[in-house]
């Protein structure tokens, strides 16, 4: 694939895109996606708690979720959180040197991490999907929680890497099963009124106690936890349906195209990446925005694009979810 386009190639692509009707090299309509192939579950990463591989044209991203138990008393965190990391395979960007590849990695990581980091100090009353997720990730409030490691690997970049990355993360989070846990409490057997008196350590089940915040006083007595069932069984993440999705609008002065190939991306002066999160009722909410590229655009045009992107995101999420539901209920 061409690495850097010449002026003539760029002008050829831009002219055909701005002609009416717009022409794309692969014959797609301006707002068509390439075929999206989704693979989830054990076929992708058998050792992960959830994983997915998305392929859109020449772009391929693998994303996997791994849970690990985090001791909250020794860290700054006070609930379950998500830690993101994006790695780019050197084969994805063969024309870039090591430093430039690191920069791309850190850019992708920072946009992903920013989207999946909740603002704990927020006084807002409307809970975000991150609040819902961290509830599922809590094991013992204030003591232990699952740290969700969301790792994505960009295997190849044939354009539109942001959309594919967020699709892969959504699919992996959808696929994730959080193991069920049960709190365990140790009581002194010499004390009166204790149910079992056979051993020094009596395990008392405290099912569902830690789920209500009212009874935190009782729950803090719980010292440890045990797994209820096997590692690969478990419950899905709450709020996974609201997990965000990215839409990249490739902007030309009069038209915008979706799902640009690598060559189209290089010819287009400006990209607008909008990240949407949808509630159950289908109300859209912005979870992030970025502008990339040397072009600029008028304010009114920009505002219109925010609404248009919502329609595309809704369509994309519908088709992705129907795929995910058939593969994994």
């Amino acid at each position, binding site marked *: 694939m061409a690495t850097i386009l010449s002026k003539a190639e760029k002008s050829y692509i831009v002219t055909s895109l701005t002609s009416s009707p717009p022409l794309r090299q692969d014959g797609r309509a301006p707002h068509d996606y390439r075929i999206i192939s989704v693979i989830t579950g054990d076929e992708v990463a058998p050792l992960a708690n959830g994983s997915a591989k998305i392929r859109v044209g020449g772009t391929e991203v693998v994303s996997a979720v791994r849970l690990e138990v985090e001791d909250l008393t020794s860290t700054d965190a006070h609930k379950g959180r998500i830690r993101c990391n994006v790695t780019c395979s050197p084969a994805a960007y063969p024309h870039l040197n090591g430093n430039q590849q690191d920069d791309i990695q850190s850019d992708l990581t*920072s946009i992903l991490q920013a989207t999946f980091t909740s603002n704990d100090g*927020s006084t*807002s009353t409307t809970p975000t999907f991150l609040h819902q997720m961290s509830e599922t990730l809590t094991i013992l409030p204030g003591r232990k929680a699952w740290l969700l490691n969301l790792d994505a690997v960009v295997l190849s970049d044939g354009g539109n890497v942001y959309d594919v990355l967020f699709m892969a993360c959504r699919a992996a989070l959808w696929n994730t099963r959080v193991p069920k846990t049960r709190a365990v409490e140790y009581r002194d057997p010499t004390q009166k009124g204790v149910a079992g008196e056979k051993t020094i350590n009596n395990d008392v089940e405290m099912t569902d106690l830690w789920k209500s915040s009212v009874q935190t006083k009782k729950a803090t007595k719980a010292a440890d936890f045990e797994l209820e069932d096997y590692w690969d069984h478990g419950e899905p993440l709450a709020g996974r349906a609201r997990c965000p999705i990215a839409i990249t609008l490739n902007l030309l002065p009069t038209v915008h195209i979706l799902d640009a190939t690598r060559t189209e991306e290089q010819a287009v002066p*400006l990209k607008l990446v909008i990240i949407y999160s949808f509630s159950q009722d289908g109300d*859209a909410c*912005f979870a992030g925005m970025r*502008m990339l590229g040397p*072009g*600029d655009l008028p304010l009114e045009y920009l*505002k219109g694009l925010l609404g248009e992107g919502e329609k595309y995101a809704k369509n994309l999420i519908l088709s992705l979810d129907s795929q995910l539901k058939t593969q994994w209920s």
Partner: protein
Amino acid sequence: MAQPSFDRRRVNGPEESFPPIFPDLPAEPLVTNGKRRDGRALNDVRPIFLQTGLISQANGSAYIETGNTKIACAVYAPRQLKNAQYSDVGRLNVEVKFAPFSSKIRRAHLRDVEDRSIGQLVYQSLLPAVQLHLFPKSSIDVFITIIENDGLESCVASASMAASTALADAGIEMLGMVVSCCSAINDDGIWLDPDTAEVKASRGTLLLAGLPALGTITNLWQAGQITSLDALRCIDACHERFKDLHDVVIDALMQSNRAKQAQALS
């Protein structure tokens, strides 16, 4: 304990330490009667001090101060790109560095991840304005030092404005002056130019940068969760301040020009 990373050439802290215990003071309300803690209205930005010529050896430089945010910016340009492939457009480099004492938690002297992401945002704000095709085979280096940080979003906004002022001071041709404004959204409404505490209490933040002279937008950055209606209101609120911010930048450049002329005459 003898740690493997123990370095006796540095000032090392005591072996054992305990965090200070602070009494739980009732938190000061962020907004009372529509006024924020420093007495400004919700849609006011903090007063801005902007001056060029801070760093004499640089081709252009600027210093900006808004509230507690203090940023120095130096531009070295145009510089020859040695050992690089021929390129018919110039290259814009933006490097951001936090001073170790700039934040509540000490910043390491090495480059960290946040430097890069803030540098990227400032780069995107400036890129559409700078006429890079006039500088083939050369690079335009912008160095930004954050001396004090009060609200990351306002740092990006102030840094973009300081950088565009410094670029103009260095005589780099631009399509217009870049100004930038940030906002935080909460249940109370939209707060412009939020500080750290206000960002922490907010649902989401939005940053807008543009060229008021051309009426175009060069950068849009949003974090947190904002409904579409709120996002449009934030964009409008930020855009409303563009003219005032542009006046501040122009005023700083006029002053520096007058000072230069006076120096040349005497």
